[in-house]
């Protein structure tokens, strides 16, 4: 995406309600979520990285080996995450495998060579459990469109969360079975199993 594309996306998001449901704004929400994940992957803020191991050596893969890009498939926007120099990856995080698109993530022998997520599919998977995938507009504005710096640790944003009483907002959303899509590990709250 070009800086102009991102600015258009930002202006579109800012006009949305406080809580943006994937049900109502599937394409917009999918693009924003994919962009957020793509930008965090392989940085200090990549919270999925600590679950990503090399399946052959059993060692954790250094986060700076992790790469990502936006992908599009039959109109669906998603994100592809892979680890440079690692042929097979072992995701040591229960509940995440069902969220991967099987065709693009697994080899025929069942090993995982990359992670391809399509947020719109994840929204449908969560709907099976009676949960609704949402974006919190302000979180998107603060992180994705708020001058995201991959060199800075998320502690900076944690203060922002405290000031905005986001714990309460998060709790209220989860109480009403709305899952804010921040990253794949967020979905551990409701796994499709």
């Amino acid at each position, binding site marked *: 995406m070009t800086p102009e594309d991102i600015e258009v996306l930002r202006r579109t998001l800012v006009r949305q309600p406080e809580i943006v449901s994937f049900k109502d704004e599937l394409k917009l929400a999918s693009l924003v979520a994919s962009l957020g994940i793509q930008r965090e992957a392989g940085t200090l803020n990549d919270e999925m990285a600590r679950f990503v191991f090399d399946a052959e050596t059993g060692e954790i893969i250094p986060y700076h080996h992790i790469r990502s890009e936006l992908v599009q498939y039959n*109109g669906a926007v998603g994100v592809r995450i892979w680890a440079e120099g690692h042929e097979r990856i072992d995701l*040591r995080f229960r509940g995440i495998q*069902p969220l991967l698109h099987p065709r693009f993530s697994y080899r025929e022998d069942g090993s995982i060579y990359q992670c391809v997520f399509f947020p719109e599919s994840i929204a449908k998977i969560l709907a099976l459990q009676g949960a609704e995938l949402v974006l919190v507009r302000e979180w998107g504005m603060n992180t994705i469109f708020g001058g995201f710096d991959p060199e800075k640790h998320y502690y900076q944003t944690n203060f922002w969360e405290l000031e905005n009483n986001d714990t309460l907002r998060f709790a209220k959303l989860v109480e009403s079975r709305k899952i804010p899509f921040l*990253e794949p590990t*967020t979905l551990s709250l409701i796994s*499709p*199993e």
Partner: protein
Amino acid sequence: MKKNLKMIAMAGFNLAVNTVAVMAASSSSQAAVSNTSMLGNNQGSTNTQVNSISMASIEKSFLEVPRMCKDRSAAFDPVPVGREEVPSQVVAIHLALDSAQGAVA
């Protein structure tokens, strides 16, 4: 930003549940206080007891937070999971993208 938020949220849930329980207990006690007051008992001393029970319970709930956070953190430690079974309904959702109308692959 997220892991800490989740941990705090979960701790907050438990704390809220405990606090609600304390409030419910307090309400019952206060109702009892009103009744006994009508009967001419010493309302002041009963209120003191209610307050001390509430504060102790609330304090206990707060003291539980670090342990709950630690437990929650442990739940997020990497664990080998092998190949996970994917429900057929979930597979169908993924594969539906293959036949979706729209843009270029």
